[in-house]
């Protein structure tokens, strides 16, 4: 059975995943159309697997913002594989391409790395970090909403004391989700706000505390130090915390996302990624490179502006979304 069929069957068997994958299909329609469309174009145009074919394939992957190095490695591996299996027809190579891409996604990791680490009967602290304008506060709002709906008692800490209107923005989300927001005035020390947040979460017996932080560019050393301090406060106040450090990445970001993942990890030991704005034409392929090089899993993807458009990341569904057209062609 070909790899594609296996993947397809997997979804046929599992109704629940079918529902998930249809959301992905919807949200990533534009992404998918252009991506798999181009792979199909490519395969139709080149009947023989040769140097030109690989060059073009390289471009398709690069245009999806998959890291340049990752693409080069992938192409090298593919070239080897094609030689090994003596593949001459581009139609056959399609399977190999998808298989390799999925391999990068999964790596050697356990598939459960994508689940959010929420402790039972104990306060779980989630720290949310990222550069400016990626959608940290919005993602927190959506996440709070969802956790609340699951019956969790959620508290938010307004740790972005820098950007104008940031506290108010989180408060609006707090109202919408009907959860408490702990805040101080603009300009106050973020570590102090988070400290207050922890105290409040403890005294209110909350299940989850989500800490917002100000957006910062990863090359600002002082601001990154500030972030480490916030994390130290959390570590000190709640044993085992933060249970999650989520790095929010904008899917439109190019190669710099790798730098972001690396530097934020150094400062706060990032445990997962929230990939936002995937409902545009951007492909977010850099996630492949990040997983490949830094082994950080994606935990959530943002597929739209609505609360339920923040989806738990499901690598199978994600790959399915990317390749759905190709699968259905078969």
């Amino acid at each position, binding site marked *: 059975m070909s790899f594609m069929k296996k993947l397809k069957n997997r979804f046929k068997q599992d109704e629940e995943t079918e529902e998930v994958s249809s959301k992905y299909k919807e949200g990533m329609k534009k992404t998918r159309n252009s991506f798999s469309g181009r792979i199909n174009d490519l395969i139709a145009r080149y009947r023989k697997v040769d140097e030109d074919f690989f060059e073009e394939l390289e471009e398709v992957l690069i245009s999806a913002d998959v890291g340049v190095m990752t693409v080069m490695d992938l192409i090298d591996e593919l070239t080897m594989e094609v030689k090994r299996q003596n593949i001459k027809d581009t139609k056959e190579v399609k399977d190999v391409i998808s298989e390799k891409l999925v391999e990068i996604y999964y790596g050697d990791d356990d598939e459960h790395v994508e689940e959010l680490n929420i402790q039972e009967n104990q306060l779980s602290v989630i720290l949310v970090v990222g550069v400016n304008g990626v959608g940290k506060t919005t993602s927190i709002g959506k996440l709070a909403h969802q956790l609340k709906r699951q019956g969790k008692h959620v508290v938010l800490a307004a740790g972005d004391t820098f950007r104008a209107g940031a506290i108010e923005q989180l408060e609006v989300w707090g109202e919408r989700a009907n959860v408490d927001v702990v805040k101080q005035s603009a300009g106050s020390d973020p570590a102090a706000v988070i400290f207050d947040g922890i105290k409040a979460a403890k005294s209110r017996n909350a299940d989850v505390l989500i800490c917002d932080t100000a957006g910062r560019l990863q090359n600002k050393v002082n601001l990154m130090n500030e972030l480490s301090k916030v994390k130290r406060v959390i570590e000190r106040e709640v044993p085992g915390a933060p249970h999650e450090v989520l790095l929010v990445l904008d899917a439109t970001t190019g190669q*710099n996302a790798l730098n972001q993942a690396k530097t934020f990890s150094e400062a706060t030991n990032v445990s997962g990624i929230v990939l936002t704005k995937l409902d545009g034409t951007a492909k977010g392929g850099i996630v492949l490179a990040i997983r490949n090089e830094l082994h950080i899993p994606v935990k959530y993807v943002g597929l739209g502006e609505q609360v339920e458009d923040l989806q738990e990341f499901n690598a199978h569904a994600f790959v399915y979304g990317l390749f759905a057209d190709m699968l259905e062609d078969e």
Partner: protein
Amino acid sequence: MAFEGLADRLQSTIKKITGKGKVSEQDVKEMTREVRLALLEADVNFKVVKGLINRIKERAVGQEVMESLTPGQQVIKVVKEELTTLMGGEHSKIAVSDRPPTVIMMVGLQGAGKTTTTGKLANHLRKKHNRSPLLVACDIYRPAAIKQLETLGEQLDMPVFSMGTETSPVDIAGKAIEQAKEQHNDYVIIDTAGRLHVDNELMDELQQIKSVARPDEIFLVVDSMTGQDAVNVAESFNDQLDISGVVLTKLDGDTRGGAALSIKAVTDKPIKFAGMGEKLDELEAFHPERMASRILGMGDVLSLIEKAQTNVDEKQAKQLEEKMRTMSFTFDDFLEQMGQVKNMGPLDDLMAMIPGANKMKGLKNAQLDEKQLVHVEAIIQSMTKKERQEPGIMNASRKKRIAKGSGTSVSQVNRLLKQFEEMKKMMKQMTNIQKGKKGKGMNFPFM
């Protein structure tokens, strides 16, 4: 992952070639491959890269490069010229309407930095052009977006026009312009909500605002970290709104910013300004040539110089020069100097702006370890006033005390004292040289 600059990569390619008498076509092919990789790593769109590479190849295979004695440098020169041409000249002028107010409309994706840029632009107009802008809050969708603009208005002490989140942005824009006329605001800057370029409904809304407000400028605000998708975004916004210029934000990050090239290539609209920080005065004119260097990872000497100029107080610098000349430079001055260097930002960043700096391995490990700087600072701070001014009085027990106070060792203190003496001597020499030949610039490795 730090990407090597194009220059380094080409140099290693060329190392393979040197020894051969002549550069072959194959060599050129290899070099253009490196150029291609460098541009792709910098997020230049692959289609734009393709066009560029073809032009570069043509020139490179021609006499220009093959017959040159320094083919590597020739290739870089050709690449840089092509990039600079594509990027166009400087255009930081803002339209002025014959019939005020002049209307500027800010558009872009979510999180690009429209609201912050609106504030910065207003500040720029007042400071540099003596205008009195009215800011208009048309983002009725994102929670607290209006509040954000109002806060910026307060910080700048400028009027902000808003009508809450219930009125349509089209009406808000229309009313705002009326108010600007009544209250004699000569500029109106309309902050719109971030939206995806594929969101037809919201793109229609922008067109309606445009037809009501009849803006003299429509600025597309783009995050400089944007990847390959920059072309799609810029193309759609330009097709639907006919933008007049681009503002590139977050350029104070460490992105190479290839998006700038992509946007310019697909829209042919000038990039007018660059956002260089979170403060409201950190909006700068866009310099195409510097951007070309940055995309190629060739360092940004001009920005470094400017950074130094803005951070070093001129008066202090003069005093320092005097002290250097007369050799009355003390540890107190040294501390002050260190403070100023620190103000310029992380040392690694500064080093990254110097072309070829990553080549000087000694530099990176020996002097640029920021932790070592902290030690030096501690040692100096553990000295008495007198010791700082007259290091000559230092004896064994003083050194011991300083080492203890700063948590270092006597040998570290000794090393610093020795370095300080050497530095003083060097300074004296340097000031003499500078006097001799004034205006002689730095030596660039590629020129």
